[in-house]
């Protein structure tokens, strides 16, 4: 006979309850980058808006940066690590394929036996995690979900590749997603387009690398102009859709936190969205570089810590990158 299986019930509303980030200690100037590529400080600033970026030192591992960012997020959320039911880590640069890094981070934080796993959605991974975490809390699968975006892209960037060497950087950001009295996380708009998989990708598969006479670490490659076009214009449509799904317009926004891919994309998107002048736009890329999955929590936390944004502000997150994949949602800042 078919038994009657109980249905899980979760919270009516969810929110980001706390946020934290970790910036690696080493500041890397454009001049240092230009020792390996034929470029200049001025060229890099004009094309990307990047003035300097952070590279992790050897001891600043994916795990260490994640744990530091998470401790701040958990403390600000006002919960204990033991209350976390699930740890989601968005990363493409934890260079140990098995097991995932999430269980190690969970264990170090004291969240064991929380469910813990990594997701591979590149630059859009953090927003995927926020949406998934929110849905878990809504469905009763978890009460508190820790979502981490972390990268050590300097490990998988070719310092001599003129198209990417000046862009990618390292860092971590984390948020705690949990139940709330009013809605704090709007519906996620997400998707992927595998027909454009080769626009941003690892240059060689691990198997191909192993078969080379002189094996070299595979590194990231990007076809800049098509990516710029897709990100600036197609993604503005996705951002509008996320606003629409949340029942809001740009006039309701206090803060715009797009993935910190390139200042020129941020500017073009802001123009395409026709953001009102009083909307604060995250421009963390100027001093942090493009940290892929870590860029949105790093940028949002920077605005909160500087006072440019405040708790309770309505913010639009939109992330996009390799896949090509994307995800966006409107949130209330913690």
């Amino acid at each position, binding site marked *: 006979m078919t038994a009657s299986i109980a249905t899980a019930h979760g919270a009516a509303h969810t929110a980001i309850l706390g946020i934290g980030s970790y910036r690696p200690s080493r500041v890397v100037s454009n001049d240092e980058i230009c020792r390996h590529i034929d470029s200049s400080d001025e060229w890099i600033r*004009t*094309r990307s808006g990047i003035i300097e970026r952070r590279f992790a030192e050897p001891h600043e591992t994916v795990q260490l940066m994640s744990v530091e960012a998470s401790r701040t997020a958990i403390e600000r959320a006002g919960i204990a690590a033991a209350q976390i039911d699930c740890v989601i880590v968005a990363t493409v640069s934890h260079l140990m394929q098995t097991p995932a890094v999430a269980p190690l981070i969970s264990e170090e934080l004291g969240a064991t036996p929380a469910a813990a796993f990594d997701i591979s959605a590149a630059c859009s991974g953090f927003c995927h995690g926020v949406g998934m975490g929110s849905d878990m809390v809504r469905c009763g699968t978890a009460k508190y979900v820790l979502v981490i975006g972390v990268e050590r892209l300097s490990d998988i960037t070719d310092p001599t590749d003129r198209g990417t060497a000046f862009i990618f950087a390292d860092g971590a950001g984390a948020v705690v997603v949990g139940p709330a009295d009013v809605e704090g996380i709007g519906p996620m708009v997400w998707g992927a387009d595998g027909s454009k998989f080769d626009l941003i990708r690892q240059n060689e598969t691990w198997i191909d690398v192993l078969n080379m006479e002189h094996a070299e670490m595979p590194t990231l490659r990007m076809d*800049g*102009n*098509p990516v*710029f*076009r897709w990100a*600036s*214009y197609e993604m503005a449509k996705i951002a509008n859709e996320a606003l629409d799904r949340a029942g809001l317009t740009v006039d309701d926004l206090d803060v715009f936190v797009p993935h910190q891919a*390139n200042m*020129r994309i941020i500017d*073009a998107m802001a123009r395409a969205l026709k953001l009102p002048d009083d909307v604060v736009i995250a421009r963390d890329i100027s001093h942090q570089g493009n940290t892929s999955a870590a860029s949105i929590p790093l940028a949002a936390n920077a605005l909160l810590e500087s006072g440019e944004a405040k708790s309770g502000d309505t913010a639009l997150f939109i992330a996009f990158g390799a896949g090509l994949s994307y995800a966006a949602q409107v949130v209330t800042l913690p």
Partner: protein
Amino acid sequence: MASTEEIRSGLADIVNDVAGIPAEDVQLDKSFTDDLDVDSLSMVEVVVAAEEHFGVKIPDDDVKNLKTVGDAVAYIENAQNA
């Protein structure tokens, strides 16, 4: 159907809007990169604005062939007549 001069003039306004280049400098024989200092990312913005303004499609693969203002004007003319 727009004339060559109408397309050049419309394109000149777009280049002015995107890259701040005086519209009168945007002449058929000028190279976007060498003469007008329009970098590759600005070129993408020009192309997207031109698609909307002229009601044509300019795929990524064709953008790299548009070296001069004349190339772009001819491309738009052909696309409009297609």
